[in-house]
């Protein structure tokens, strides 16, 4: 098994003597795995995400990307090239005056040829449907348009590992579906995906579900066990989306045949 992201008993705090924001986070993410991260606001998801491309270094413990520790300066360029990160707030990501230049900026840094850059811009513009936005200013777009552009900018860099930090939170339902479809395709191509979200449905598409609580991982299961683990989420007072709640109601009535039919229906509608 090839490990893409190795997180080895990581502790983190923003200030000396400040509270621990990550406490003994420990997990291995396999190459090609798609992991969904959920957890309450402030539980440490974005902080953790930033550990994966060396934006933050652990206060204690170690993070390794494809075997390279993030705290060794000589590996930094390689790690940044391998791990792409779509931020929770896309404004944090924009650097250039037009969308086209913004997408080009990262590629220029990676030393790509002009032809290659143009080709990739056209490709990602088509993939996330931002063709008509290419000559606009990134900061003057609508909320959802910004998120699409932010995703395009990362895709153009063709990273091996992508971290999506609530990257679809402002997209309309169709836009969200399109992006998830795109992520599915990346996953099929063998990319490693870490996705932070508040939408439990999205977990069904992925391989593994991780729940964070106060800087620690409290649930870490394959998504095949998600349905049987719903009581665990209920115990943690996580309100379930309608379809999951209906599933639980049926199980509570001991209607297991019906609840499995519903599960099947939910899985089918994911493929549409």
């Amino acid at each position, binding site marked *: 098994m090839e490990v893409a992201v190795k997180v080895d008993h990581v502790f983190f705090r*923003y200030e000396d003597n400040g509270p621990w924001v990550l406490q003994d986070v420990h997990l291995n993410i396999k190459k090609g795995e798609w992991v969904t991260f*959920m*957890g*309450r*606001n*402030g539980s440490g*998801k*974005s902080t953790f995400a930033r550990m994966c491309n060396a934006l933050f270094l652990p206060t204690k413990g170690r993070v390794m990307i494809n075997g390279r520790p993030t705290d060794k300066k000589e590996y930094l360029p390689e790690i940044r090239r391998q791990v792409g990160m779509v931020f*929770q*707030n896309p*404004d944090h990501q924009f650097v250039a005056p037009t969308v086209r230049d913004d997408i080009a900026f990262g590629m220029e840094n990676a030393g790509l040829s002009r032809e290659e850059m143009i080709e990739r811009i056209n490709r990602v513009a088509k993939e996330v449907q931002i063709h008509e936005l290419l*000559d*606009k*200013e990134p900061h*003057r*777009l*609508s*909320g*959802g*348009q910004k998120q*699409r552009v932010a995703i395009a900018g990362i895709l153009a860099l063709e990273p091996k590992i992508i971290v999506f930090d*609530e990257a679809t*939170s*402002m*997209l*309309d*339902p*169709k*836009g*969200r579906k399109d992006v998830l479809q795109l992520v599915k395709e990346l996953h099929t191509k063998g990319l490693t995906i870490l996705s932070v979200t*508040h939408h*439990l449905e999205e977990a069904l598409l992925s391989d593994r579900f991780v729940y964070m609580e106060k800087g620690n991982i409290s649930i870490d299961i394959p998504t095949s066990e998600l349905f049987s683990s719903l009581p665990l989420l209920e115990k943690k*007072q*996580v*309100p*379930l*989306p*309608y*379809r999951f*709640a*209906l599933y*639980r*109601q*049926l199980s*509570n*009535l001991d*209607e297991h*045949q*019906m609840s499995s*039919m*519903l599960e099947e*229906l939910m899985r089918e*509608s994911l493929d549409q």
Partner: protein
Amino acid sequence: MKIEFRKTNHIYMKKTPFETHALRQVSTTFPSGSTTAIIGQTGSGKSTLVQHINGLLKPDAGQVIVGGEIIDRKAKRKQLKTLRQKVGMVFQYPEHQLFEDTVEKELLFGPLNFGLSKKRLLKELPDRLAQVGLDETILSRSPFELSGGQMRRVAILSVLLMKPKVLILDEPTAGLDPKGQEEMIKLFKGWQQEEKATMILITHEMDEALQLAERLVVMDKGKIVMEGMMTEIFAKTEELAQFGLDIPESVRLLKQIEEKFQVTFSSYQLTPAQAAKEWVKERNRKGLTPHV
């Protein structure tokens, strides 16, 4: 407070290569004390529309009338400023509305400006913070060093503390955890009923629209293309699909179940518990296990 749009146009960056016609001849009325949800695809003009109500943007043509105050192309700064005191707005990205260096200053800024007593406000704060799921330890922190969801909660509270006559919520639960979403919807609902304020909600979550609003406005390419009572509009599945929109998750699921398993629900607004019971009852009545 009643809000009216009369043939309102908005063009961003007029006469530059970046020109964008974001509102096209929009006419509509938000009755005083009403609750309306605005839905529409990315870039359809939702945020642009509501930013006319609190004076952040001026129409290029046409008018916006907010509680008798007429805003047009020539509106003066002072006029726009008075709007900002009556109309509270939770921005799509909370970062865009936060500016103080501590959460405490952030929360007190508006109310102090209105001459409310600081002592009283400080006494009230712990309870109010609890309403949005935060505690007092956050008061001394910088609003910019919070997690996304914590920032959102601060932004929401700072607007509610101003007791606005009109409350505008631009995707207010994006980035909130599920529990936070549930709590905030309850908070908005209770607040609106108590204050009888006019409330306008922009959202991509149709279930949220269903829970919070009685009216629905659908936008597409800078225009209002559908408008009416919530249930009326959500019955028009095909028309909504034309604009790339969908009916609420819960309604869609129940319809899917009806179709696939030949059941009929008594309504599409059932709680999961009610829906489960009806489904089981129907199956027992038919005396067989439903098959595909």
